[in-house]
């Protein structure tokens, strides 16, 4: 991965509600984090699962801060948010 890229994967899982993607996307945009790809599914007709690849190279926030801000934005919903450096998926799923 190049020096000017800092890829993160955001995962949001939980009870489906209207506007989850909008809330997450707003927080990322406000903090200069650029969404590269986004994938959203409703599993078994009820569980919301979103995975999102983004670049945080222009953001001043570290991963714990990004996680806190995302959690804050959806705190009234039954959702869990995970933010991880994309390298972990590269390592575990690609030979």
């Amino acid at each position, binding site marked *: 991965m190049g020096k000017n890229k800092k890829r993160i*994967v955001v*995962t949001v*899982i939980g009870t489906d509600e209207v506007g989850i993607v909008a809330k997450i996307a707003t927080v990322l945009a406000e903090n200069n984090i650029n969404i590269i*790809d986004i*994938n959203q*599914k409703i599993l078994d007709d009820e569980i919301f*699962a979103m*995975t999102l*690849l983004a670049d945080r190279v222009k953001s001043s926030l*570290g*991963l*714990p801060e990004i996680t806190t801000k995302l959690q804050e934005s959806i705190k009234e919903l039954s959702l*869990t948010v*995970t*933010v*991880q*450096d*994309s*390298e*972990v*998926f*590269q*390592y*575990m*799923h690609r030979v």
Partner: protein
Amino acid sequence: MKFTNEEILETVGMIAEDKLDIRTVTLGISLFDCSDPDPAVCARKVREKILKKGANLSEKASFVADEYGLPIVNKRISLTPISQVVPVADPAAFVEVAHAVDGAAGEIGVDFVGGYTAMIQKGETAIDRALIAAMPEVLATTQRFCASVVLASTKAGINMDGCYTMSQVIKDAAERTAKQDGIGCAKLVLFANPVEDNPFMAGAYYGAGESESSILVGVSGPGAVRRALEKLGPDADLGEVAEAIKKSAFKITRAGELVGKKIAKQLGVSFGNLDLSLAPTPAEGDSVGQILETMGLAMPGAPGSTAALMMLNDAVKKGGLFASSSVGGLSGAFIPVSEDASMIKAAKVGAITIEKLEAMTSVCSVGLDMIAIPGTTNAETLAAIIADEMAIGCANNKTTATRIIPAPGKDIGDSVHFGGLLGEAPVMAVSQVSADTFVRRGGRIPAPLQSLKN
């Protein structure tokens, strides 16, 4: 996307639900430049080196854990065997240096330190004798410093005098820590054929062939392996089971390698190696015993346990070796009784016995581990149990070990409680048939033949 939804959710699920984590990030530190005949000077040098090398370990480990969303359970330090650092045959010198180590480790926030170690497989030096004489006091008066003694090797045979001496040290350490169910013994491992780059406690020490300082990583993913087998269902044959274990071990190992390399880079030291052991914790689901249950045994200890464990151990290595070029340490499944919810259950109902555990240790790492026995067990019987385990290691050219707690004032039906990663254990029955005369003969059992192996 670069990764599929399923891949991402699998990893997130492995961490959140299957308790995939990094069991330990262990910083190995060479102490060869800290040796000094004056115990006070030696203690000061050791303390300063630990504080200097380990200052950022906790902070950097937490940073990397946050970056990847992979919890790191323990931060530890392994040291050059202290018998090679303190050049004085005086027990008081060892106590002084041990307290310096324990204090420094506490200051930098590490959970355990390994390296209160002597190697006496072929015989003891005066320094070894002083180290061992101070051992019960060190185990009782330090919190974090773990001890290990090498009693046997394939090339040297078994030091039976050493087995007998150490059984008495174990009993002494148990008595001195009786209020905490004999926790002193949970910090003492006796080895045959140990490895020099083991990140796991209590048996870690940093061997003479290692570099100045390096990062050693131990992963812990029994929950993730179990989940993969559950998905296969009960109809899959054992070849398919082995295949699923390999795939899951590959992913677990990659996670460990990534974290290890990153922390080493952050600390400016080399990445030593990754230990491929499946290490359980007492948490529900984080259990090697449950993997055996998922394979189809009603409980660990059932007939078939040795075969199932051999397959598990082998498949983890085959999957893990492809995932990392830095595999080392013990690299084998652990079956500690007190640290594994399913093993605790099996021991409570008598499904697993010391004798069955002994058989299982011939096909996995590391030995009779975290087993509580009645406090009244005599030193000769304890020495004989230790010698049996050493024999398995010697004859099979592999590491074996014992970590046994003769729990003071406790008998079969009672339990010991250590808390945290050390867990709890029911007191297990020990054979009442005497080995006293055999043990009291002393001497050394010669090295076993390495050809004509049947």
